[in-house]
């Protein structure tokens, strides 16, 4: 089956999911991102790789943080950036998703950055632009439903590579609401592609989808056992609407069993790093003393996020320099 994010030469045409990318391609993105990390530290924080290109931020679901990082990344590549909050405009007037895309493509968009509540929506858009608008239009998935958040997965890998250097000896644990998490899915694919020998997921049975074991993970329901000797802990955000209901009785009980406290973290390796995609619920999935502690790399993740988004956009649409 043709992977719709690759062109017929096997190059990246869109970034829709980490699933299906080769190790070489992932490493190329990470290497490119590493080259961009320094740009943000310069006096002039700009490179001209996307000069004259237009990046449309299409957020069908709100996310100030992710949208802002794409905006900063595009700006640092000298692109023009247009932010559209679709909830508030066309779809409320009954315009279909693909009509919206056609209209924006007619305004000469080069990159669509798409966030959508439905899993797979960026695939629909990518197939449509391939058919209707040609190979100069690219789609970046900025999070679709529970499916994928590939730039988050890549920035997590860049963070791990920065602090741990080599993937092939690591044990990584992903903790919390796996069922609803696109970050977890993207991280699981990326870690497996990069050769991490043991990827663990930790959480209650109600927050894990059936068929999870087939994705290449070891499943733990006991946090202390799951954290034993891990090198990296990735905490997931627990959405407030999941906290009190048929999946979980309360945030308090979740924190007691799966919240990351210094005591639980002590089961990991002493040099383990702690990550979180943000925004954090302090006291729900993570204790403040851990979030702000010496092992936390949550703020470097944000910095790496900009470099990764610059790398992806420049690889998709940049002038071949």
């Amino acid at each position, binding site marked *: *089956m043709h*992977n*719709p994010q690759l062109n017929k030469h096997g190059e990246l045409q869109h970034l829709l999911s980490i*699933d299906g990318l080769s190790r070489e391609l992932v490493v190329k993105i990470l290497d490119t991102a590493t080259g961009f990390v320094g740009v943000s530290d310069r006096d002039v924080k700009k490179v001209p790789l996307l000069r004259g290109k237009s990046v449309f931020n299409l957020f069908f679901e709100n996310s100030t943080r992710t949208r802002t990082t794409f905006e900063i990344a595009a700006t640092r590549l000298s692109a023009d950036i247009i932010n559209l909050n679709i909830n508030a405009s066309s779809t409320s007037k009954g315009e*279909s*998703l*693909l009509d919206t895309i056609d209209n924006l493509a007619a305004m000469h968009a080069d990159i669509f950055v798409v966030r*959508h509540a*439905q*899993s*797979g*929506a960026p*695939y*629909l858009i990518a197939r*449509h632009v391939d058919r209707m608008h040609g190979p100069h239009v690219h789609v970046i998935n900025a999070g*679709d*439903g*529970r*499916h*994928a958040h590939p730039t988050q997965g890549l920035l997590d890998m860049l963070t791990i590579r920065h602090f741990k250097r080599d993937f092939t000896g690591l044990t990584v644990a992903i903790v919390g609401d796996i069922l609803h998490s*696109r970050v977890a*899915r993207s991280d699981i694919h990326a870690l497996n592609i990069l050769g991490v020998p043991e990827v663990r997921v930790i959480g209650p049975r109600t927050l894990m*989808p*059936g*068929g*999870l074991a*087939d*994705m290449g993970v070891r499943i733990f329901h006991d946090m202390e056992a799951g954290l034993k000797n891990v090198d990296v802990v990735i905490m997931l955000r627990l959405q407030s609407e999941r906290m009190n209901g048929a999946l979980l009785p309360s945030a308090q009980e979740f924190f007691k069993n799966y919240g990351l406290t210094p005591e639980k973290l002590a089961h990991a390796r002493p040099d383990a790093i702690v990550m979180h995609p943000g925004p954090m619920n302090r006291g729900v999935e993570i204790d403040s003393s851990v979030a702000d502690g010496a092992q936390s790399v949550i703020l470097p993740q944000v910095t790496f996020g900009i470099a990764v988004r610059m790398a992806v956009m420049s690889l998709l649409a940049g002038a071949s320099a």
Partner: protein
Amino acid sequence: MKCLVRNARVMDPASGLDETLDVLIDDGLIAALGSSALAAPGTRVIDARGLWLIPGLCDLSARLREPGLEHKATLESELQAALAGGVTSLVCPPDTDPPLDEPALVEMLKRRAQSLGGAKVYPLGALTVGLAGEALTEMAELAEAGCIGFSQANRPVVNTTVLLRAFDYARTFDQTVWLAPIDAHLGRGGVAASGALAARLGLPSVPVLTETVALATFFELVRATGCRLHIARLSSAAGIDLVRRARAEGLPVTCDVSANHIHLIDLDIGYFDTNFRLDPPLRSQRDRDAIRAGLIDGTIDAICSDHTPVDDDAKQIPFGEAEAGATGLELLLSLTLKWAQESSLDPLVALRYITSSPAQLIGIAAGTIGVGVPADLCLVDPHAFWKVSHASLKSQGKNTPFEGYELPARVAATFVAGQLAFATPEFAARPDGS
């Protein structure tokens, strides 16, 4: 008018007849079967050398979308599609808009279908008013108007007391209840079968439990009431096991599967292809194998098309929002014979699941070839492969997971009550055999 079909390979699954014969059609009935029937003057003679003559297909589920959903399909378009698919009798579920919960609606539908003169339409009445699962419909009146059973389509009854009463009431009037095995809560909102594919794509999922829990409840109600039950669209190995045991116990239970589910599995969804958004969802290869085995061992009575025309606007949206369903009337024969080929099954055996078995199940005089039987027949070119495409389908519904497939066997002509109701241009251009 008399018509003599000569030299066809006549295949009748009900009797096991499979030989090259001449068939004389007179006054809407099959008048004679023989090796050298004589053509009286004025008889139209069709030379069907190289073709199969089989009973017209009986499809246990085809949505015609009238009344109320004419933007998806109309009776005209779908009854033509039925004939092009060799389907001469079909059962339509009651989930129209409004649902078929009043005798006048059923009478109107039957009358319109009759006036169009295509396939014969056998409606299922709504089991509850508005399919809302609260109040029973006037089943006796609806049966008199032409309903052959009572169904909720894909909308489960939440209140088990109502369901018990519906079984009791249907039993009072000797009616069959048709239910899809769906629990009202388990898997609600799901769009793909629980498993590795749904986990990977992050799609809300439908566990097998929805089917097994529903079946366990249904069978208890059948035991309590003695009501006849037809289970519409089994999808899982575990569900088929439950049905097998219920039948062994002697419960009055029949069931069908859709032609999509004898071929496809969840992995075929690929990258969110909405043509594969079906209800029930496609399940694992193990489940598909169990469906095939359940057909062979007689647990499953029939293969239906589950024809559900959907407009493009309801498919060209994200997978989770897309409407479930696929066009199917014109694929039923080919998909059944494709299964027979893949399983090295005698086509005569495979044809039973789309002709005699479903016809017997709904108690109509159809689905067989014999003297005195209504001449609802289908001529098939077994060697013609055809490519499924928008252009090759007469149905207004063009969406199918089999788009682009090369399928075996093409319907050359269809007779309804002795009249040649459909013929391909190639068939119509054949020289007259007289």
